[in-house]
């Protein structure tokens, strides 16, 4: 077969539409007679609404309605109806449900008007009076309230301990203990959340920003008592989401509520400030204790994590479990607990849990390597895990050693001097750090439909989402290759509940899940074409064996005799077939899943320069070597890793949502004060994909690259900062004050 697209750096098929502005994002849809909604956000963290005065707003000409808990009725009383597919255990937030305020920034009213400007102005005239109650939002002060994290959230597995880590720790020759702290973070995709809802002839059409159209359909159907078939969600383009679009956000509820009530199309968007009011990466405290014998073999790992959640839902993520699988160790003790606070429920954010756990584990490994006076990379190799000790299963594939080797070589790791503060350039202290990353290679059931028409064009569709990762492109590649078509003849469509069901777009599983469905359905079409080729009397393949038929660039030919051929178009014509339509479902192989652990891996090497006097840290070089199975498209995959590394730098050095516990409110709620890296902060980033063949993980041999790029970065940088300065900052982000150790209230760091 000659047609080859899989593994090629095909440019984004949606690139032109995006750069020319013809790609429509949810806020771009305009409908005749559309109204605009503006949400009023609450200002207290806990209490009751005593009254809402909407008279000022309602008196303006052009304001149609102000929705509040006082005039919204007829919605389900039971909170279970508000559960979406990604909801943790607990009782979901119900917008405008009653007078209770349960977190700061809670939406308390929706103003609907003829124009956006009017709605916004009217919203400023809505006066809410509250009766405040005591609240608490500080994880550190509420550690005594912690409780065991319950199971029940999609993908969450409780940690498993083994051996006797306490005893091993007490007896070991070398040990370390450290506590690590992570601040809250918000996803802050460039595109703000926005929904346009249209209610027409008993049917609801909704343009939404989401990572799962079917999840929104399910949610809206249940909350508003509509049949799923009467709710259509459309979301062709998403300007970043990073997990924030996994759960239906409250603007969706608001837009639908208003459209149903007012019987006119309604658009509701969130402001940047409101983007800080519906879920975040939680503040987490971690304790790590590791021990090793004199030869550097790990004797014990003790890892505890405490994360904040809301009072109404138990948001859980996998933080400590990674300590059981990353390295070889017989004595592992793990604990993960939650603390309920007066805030909104956290929500999955790129590499949830892993990015938090990995920073602590990888810092701790570095600390122990220094105790042992061992090179931190050699220490990791010494404790390399050949199999998953937690589940006692082999990995379907694990080329992490190749990541270490190729990454170290590219980085020049062997030139590293081992001692802290041993490399400098004038007043810049130079440090090199390394860290490991691992992530699950999930696959979920997905469906896809293929429609091949007589002009030789193929349309494949599946109700998945492209949050900017390149889903459109890789699915087009897979389809073109599977059916032996030219890529120009293939169109992939997504983001519509009228399309076959696909899982939520998250967890780096879309390439594997939807990819398998696309491959499967194209193979079904191929089978039909083969059958047609051997059954049609005038076909050159009439009455021959279909085994010898190959497909390439839209031509069907004999594998042994290339002169014997016919185009797909001609074959369909002579067979008198106008189109071929197939739908098929793919899912994980349950036996393989039972027998093996599926993980992607990466090794990250970072160089920092730290200003000796001012404590300013710059990341001057990063090499990220990734083992993620088959790379479908090295160009889009590289972009995923680059984005992950940039975000890792952000997490390590800059990013934090600052909560004022006097108000229980995030205060730096704009992109001027919520820092993410600017161009000048980012220097050399090198991405390496190591060869990793995996026939077990899924039919395509892919593991996904959406999260693996971010996971190891903060650890590598923190370790590099220690190597540069001799200061171990265990509290992210590593800002200059912490490096300088002059923040008086920060006792979380030790000088060496």
């Amino acid at each position, binding site marked *: 077969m000659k047609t080859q697209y899989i593994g090629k750096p095909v440019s984004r098929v949606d690139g032109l539409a995006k750069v020319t502005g013809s790609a429509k994002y949810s806020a771009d849809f305009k409908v005749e007679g559309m109204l605009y909604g503006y949400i009023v*956000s609450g200002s207290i963290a806990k209490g009751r609404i005593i009254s809402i005065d909407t008279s000022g707003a309602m008196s303006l000409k052009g304001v149609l309605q102000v929705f509040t808990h006082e005039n919204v009725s007829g919605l389900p009383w039971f909170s279970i109806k508000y559960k979406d597919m990604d909801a943790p255990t607990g009782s979901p937030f119900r917008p405008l449900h009653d007078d209770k305020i349960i977190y700061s920034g809670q939406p308390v009213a929706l103003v609907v008007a003829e124009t956006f400007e009017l709605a916004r*102005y009217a919203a400023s005239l809505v006066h809410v009076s509250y009766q405040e109650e005591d609240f608490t939002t500080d994880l550190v002060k509420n550690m005594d309230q912690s409780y065991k994290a319950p199971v029940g959230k999609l993908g969450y597995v409780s940690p498993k301990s083994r051996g006797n880590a306490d005893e091993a720790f007490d007896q070991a020759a070398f040990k370390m203990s450290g506590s690590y702290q992570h601040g809250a973070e918000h996803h802050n995709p460039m595109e703000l959340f926005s929904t346009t809802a249209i209610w027409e002839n008993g049917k609801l059409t909704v343009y939404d920003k989401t990572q799962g159209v079917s999840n929104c359909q399910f949610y809206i159907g249940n909350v508003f008592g509509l049949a799923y078939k009467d709710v259509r969600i459309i979301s062709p383009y998403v300007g970043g989401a990073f997990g924030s679009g996994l759960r239906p956000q409250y603007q969706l509820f608001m837009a639908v509520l208003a459209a149903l009530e007012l019987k006119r199309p309604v658009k509701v968007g969130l402001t940047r400030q409101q983007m800080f009011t519906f879920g975040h990466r939680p503040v987490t405290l971690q304790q790590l204790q590791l021990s090793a014998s004199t030869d550097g073999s790990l004797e014990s790992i003790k890892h505890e994590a405490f994360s904040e959640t809301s009072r109404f839902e138990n948001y859980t993520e996998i933080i400590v479990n990674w300590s059981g699988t990353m390295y070889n160790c017989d004595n592992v003790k793990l604990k993960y607990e939650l603390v309920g606070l007066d805030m909104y429920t956290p929500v999955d954010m790129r590499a949830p849990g892993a990015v938090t756990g990995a920073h602590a584990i990888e810092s701790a490994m570095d600390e122990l390597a220094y105790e042992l006076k061992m090179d931190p990379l050699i220490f990791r190799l010494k404790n390399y895990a050949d199999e998953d000790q937690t589940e006692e299963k082999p990995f379907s594939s694990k080329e992490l050693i190749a990541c270490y080797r190729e990454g170290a070589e590219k980085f020049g790791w062997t030139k590293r001097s081992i001692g802290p503060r041993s490399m400098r350039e004038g007043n810049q202290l130079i440090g090199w750090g390394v860290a490991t990353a691992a992530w699950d290679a999930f696959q979920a059931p997905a469906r896809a439909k293929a429609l091949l028409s007589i002009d030789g064009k193929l349309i494949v569709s599946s109700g998945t989402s492209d949050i900017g990762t390149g889903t459109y492109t890789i699915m087009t590649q897979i389809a073109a290759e599977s059916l032996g078509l030219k890529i120009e003849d293939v169109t992939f469509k997504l983001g519509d509940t009228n399309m076959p069901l696909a899982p939520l777009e998250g967890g780096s599983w879309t390439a594997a899940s939807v990819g398998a469905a696309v491959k499967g359905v194209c193979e079904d079409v191929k089978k039909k074409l083969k059958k047609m080729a051997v059954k049609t009397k005038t076909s050159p393949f009439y009455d021959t064996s279909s085994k010898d038929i190959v497909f390439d660039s839209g031509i069907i030919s004999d594998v042994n005799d290339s002169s014997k051929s016919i185009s797909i178009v001609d074959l369909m014509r002579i067979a008198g077939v106008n189109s071929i339509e197939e739908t098929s479902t793919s899912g994980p192989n349950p036996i393989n899943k039972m027998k093996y652990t599926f993980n992607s891996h990466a090794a990250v090497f970072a160089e920092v320069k730290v200003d000796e006097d001012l404590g300013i840290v710059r990341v001057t070089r990063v090499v990220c070597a990734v083992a993620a199975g088959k790379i479908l498209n090295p160009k889009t995959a590289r972009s995923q890793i680059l984005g992950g590394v940039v975000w890792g730098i952000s997490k390590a050095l*800059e990013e934090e949502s600052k909560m*004022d516990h006097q108000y229980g409110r995030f205060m730096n709620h704009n992109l001027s004060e919520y820092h993410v890296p*600017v161009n000048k*902060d980012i220097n050399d980033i090198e991405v390496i994909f190591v060869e990793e063949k995996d026939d077990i993980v899924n039919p395509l041999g892919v593991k996904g690259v959406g999260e693996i790029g971010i996971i190891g970065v903060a650890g590598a940088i923190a370790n590099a900062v220690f190597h540069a300065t001799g200061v171990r900052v265990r509290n992210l982000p590593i800002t200059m004050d912490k490096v300088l150790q*002059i923040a008086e209230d920060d006792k979380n760091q030790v000088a060496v």
Partner: protein
Amino acid sequence: MNSFSYNKAHDVAEAVADIQEHEGARFIAGGTNLLDLMKENVMKPAHLTDINRLDLADIKENEEGGLTLGALVTNADTAWNERVEQRYPLLSKAILAGASPQLRNMATNGGNLFQRTRCYYFYDTATACNKREPGSGCSAINGINRIHAILGTSEHCIATHPSDMCVALAALDAKVNVTGPNGDRTVEFGDFHRLPGNTPHLDNNISQGELVTSIDLPPSNFTKNVFYLKVRDRQSYAFALVSVAAALDLEGDVIKDIRVAMGGVAHKPWRRREVEESYIGKVASTENFRALAETMLTGAVGFGGNTFKIELAKRAIVRALNEALKSGENL
């Protein structure tokens, strides 16, 4: 955002008259600060007098032998102006350390002087803030105050003035020309901004009806040994935690004159001429710079989150002066 009326003025007289006529009116220039504040309901002017059409967009020679910067010259055009670059490199560097190219293209010199603090609470109407709502209290004192002031604070407000440009203007002894209902006046730069005291709602000593028309720069010998150091949480597009405008006029290694102004540490650019003067005639050395820095920071008080700034500011002064000494080669 509130509703407001709007008028585009054609000359200075009309602008000054227009603002007198409307209660709660404001001038609008580039709009990069005012519009943000209006969208957040922090400022709610009932009327806007647009001054963008006024003839104040030139950079001219002045009688003293220095340059006069029109109030409507953009920050970008000022920073990249050849005469400014050659004669007032400190000012160019300071402007370019601020904001982003897009913002500097819109921001005007006049507007820059009036930009308001970046205190989180000032921007969030759900919280108490004496600057926004006098008498409501200061949330920052016991709240998140990493970016707040360490010098000249009061129990009513610990906000900083966020400008970079103004730090250089303070160092260079600029003067601000103002036209108001009572005619023209000139304000020394050091008297332009205020300390919070018990009137934190006032940022400066200019009344609402007064229009800044231009900024005078006196002739300056600080053309070679200058440096603007901006210490911030990322490499660009962040306000200063501490910034230092440092300038040396040297004879050999002896200080003929010296200027040190700090940003990000107080409600106004922080400069103390008497401290500078006490180093005239002394050798330009790290020891002397450190001693000067200690004196500059006398009286500094931290509020927890920002306490690190006290030591950081001292180090920043030393670094900036040392860099200025090296003729600012690696600017």
